[in-house]
């Protein structure tokens, strides 16, 4: 029987040499005359172990990692094909604690299947949600998504079902589904992983969304920084179209839905939904004032569903297993699971999908295993460049939209960046302002001018120039930006700045300058 060896094609694995490992494995297989095929899967999300090579054995998949090309010969010598023991052997993949503790709903197939095999996708439960949806009335699909409690995973947390209902009820002969895959937040990579590791789940989610709202065309707007995700998504769309999952008659239902991938051009602000719509239309990625809501007047002024990748990729399982199944996970108003991305200076980095409600400290200390540098954790930034910096004192915060908001933070797209005690929080606050200045679309004054002034004020504090006055000025500026900006870029940049000032005041009191002798 042919043995399968899995070597990820996820960008993180590639960046750590997965292609070199695959090449060395191919050569070794040929030289040794082994009956082995190599499958290029997505990533399991255990990124500190990438490239993570797996072998299918009669007892299940056995993992090895991190594998380098130079390890390949010794792996085969140790009987890799039969799951043999080796210094890099991690045992059965499913038993690795980081994976075993997860609840994988959205990412159930990611890293397990060949991302471009529709047969693999079907045999692992794929397309069942869409099958159910095409037999249903659109209103019933929308109701099921609403009842599941699914909220926008892009960060705003708006109930997905309500958004869909607005589009379903909007008048219009042409409607669109737009997938926001402009994942620009540092510390996040869940969208990239699903597009590279299980693209059909996103296609299925978008097709369900189209059938539920009467939209016949979908766009995935992603980033030029994600060439692998773009290529995999585009190929998966072609496969889905050839198989009749997309096209004039979705799975033979007589209802049409098709889609394409579009690439941004390095503008962070295009992750903001209205800027994204302008960019898709071929305009400058400038934020639009709301109302009108995109659900009423979105892409080309047509009713448009605009959802994050993870929101859409969570829909198939809701349509397959039911609203109750999904809603039973989570806490409070945060229902279901959330793929937490653990990044930065952390020992066990990667993607951890779990029900809402886990304490932040549990994620950092136990799942993440503390810092990679071995030094104490100083701060964690949750929610990307617009998310607050939390000190250890707030590590009891449960991972939940409302709990984070109550502590002046946000979970955003659920990325966590860990910093050790060498971090300078004044520098981080300055960077938040600098990033906003670089990426501001320029439409509203608080964001466009405020961010530049913010950098200057932070520099004055660092230089010891009237620090008390300038700290006050920085707080005041943050207040203006928070309440006066048109979108989250200017409006949320104050989160990292203010949280850094509040929780790490010592970093904002640099040593006084030595007076120069006259």
């Amino acid at each position, binding site marked *: 029987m042919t043995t399968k060896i899995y070597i990820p094609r996820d960008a993180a694995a590639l960046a750590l040499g997965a292609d070199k490992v695959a090449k060395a494995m191919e050569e070794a297989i040929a030289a040794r005359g082994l009956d082995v095929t190599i499958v290029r899967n997505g990533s399991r999300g255990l990124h500190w172990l990438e490239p993570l090579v797996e072998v299918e054995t009669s007892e299940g998949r056995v993992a090895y990692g991190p594998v380098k090309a130079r390890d390949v010969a010794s792996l085969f010598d140790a009987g890799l094909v039969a799951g043999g023991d080796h210094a890099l052997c991690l045992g059965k993949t499913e038993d690795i604690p980081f994976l075993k503790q997860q609840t994988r709903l959205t990412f159930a197939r990611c890293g397990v299947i060949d991302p471009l095999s529709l047969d693999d996708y079907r045999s692992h439960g794929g397309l069942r949600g869409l099958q159910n949806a095409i037999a249903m009335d659109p209103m019933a699909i929308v109701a099921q998504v609403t009842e599941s409690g699914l909220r926008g995973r892009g960060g705003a947390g708006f109930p997905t079902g309500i958004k869909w209902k607005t589009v379903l009820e909007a008048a219009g002969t042409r409607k669109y589904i737009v997938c926001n895959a402009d994942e620009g937040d540092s510390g996040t*990579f869940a969208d990239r992983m699903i597009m590279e590791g299980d693209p059909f789940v996103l296609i299925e989610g978008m097709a369900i969304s189209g059938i539920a709202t009467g939209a016949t065309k979908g766009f995935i707007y992603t*980033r030029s*920084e994600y060439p*692998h995700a773009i290529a995999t998504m585009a190929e998966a769309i072609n496969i889905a179209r050839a198989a009749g999952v997309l096209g004039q008659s979705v799975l033979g239902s007589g209802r049409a839905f098709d889609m394409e991938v579009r690439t941004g051009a*390095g503008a962070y602000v295009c992750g903001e939904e209205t800027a994204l719509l302008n960019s898709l239309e071929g*305009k400058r990625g400038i934020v639009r004032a709301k109302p009108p809501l995109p659900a009423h007047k979105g892409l*080309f002024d047509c009713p448009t569903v605009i959802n994050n990748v993870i929101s859409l990729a969570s829909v198939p399982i809701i349509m397959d297993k039911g609203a109750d199944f999904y809603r039973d996970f989570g806490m409070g108003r945060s229902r279901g699971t959330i793929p937490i991305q653990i990044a930065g200076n952390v020992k066990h980095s990667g993607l951890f999908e779990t029900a809402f409600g886990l304490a932040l400290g549990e994620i950092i200390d136990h799942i993440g295993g503390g810092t990679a540098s071995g030094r104490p954790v100083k701060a964690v930034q949750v929610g990307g*460049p617009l998310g607050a910096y939390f000190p250890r004192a707030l590590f009891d915060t449960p991972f939940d939209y409302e709990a984070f908001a109550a502590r002046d933070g946000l979970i955003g797209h659920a990325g966590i960046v860990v910093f050790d005690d060498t971090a300078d929080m004044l520098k981080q606050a300055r*960077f938040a302002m600098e990033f906003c200045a670089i990426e501001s679309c320029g439409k509203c004054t608080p964001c466009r001018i405020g961010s530049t002034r913010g950098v200057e004020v932070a520099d004055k504090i660092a230089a010891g120039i009237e620090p008390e006055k300038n700290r006050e000025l920085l707080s005041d500026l943050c207040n203006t930006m928070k309440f006066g900006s048109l979108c989250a870029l200017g409006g949320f940049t104050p989160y990292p700045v203010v949280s850094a000032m509040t929780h790490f005041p010592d970093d904002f009191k640099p040593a006084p300058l030595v007076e120069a002798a006259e």
Partner: protein
Amino acid sequence: MNIHQPRADVTARTLAIVEELKGLEGPLLPILHGIQHEFGYVPQDCLPVIARELNLSRAEVYGVFSFYHDFREHPAGRHVLKLCRAEACQSMGGDQLAERAKRLLGIDFHETTPDGAVTLEPVYCLGLCSCAPSAMFDGEVHARVDAGDLEALVAEARR
């Protein structure tokens, strides 16, 4: 990449790209990407051609071109090294790595070495935040980049 393109050639190649893509809904970004892919940058001679074909003003096309960080007005070096400057990479020594790259190449961000070998660019997140710091060299991704890796990349670019 550095060869000057005669104007007529630019126009013909631009027209071919526009012709292929103008049927898309919202074709301007795909066209600009196509132009940059074709020429390595966006020659300013292209812009009036695009404007005419899409029935837009030249100002509108220039406005879109200049809004996005990706589109270059001038050719890049033979190799492009992008270093991630965002928070996750900062937490793993990204700033020191960037300083090292600047010193090794003798240039700042957005500059090209005098021999035309390398252009150094910042990038804000490659989605490799779990294995920081990261870089992209001629479209290929690299993670957990240390001083040695950086030197190897620079040496490769200089060859």
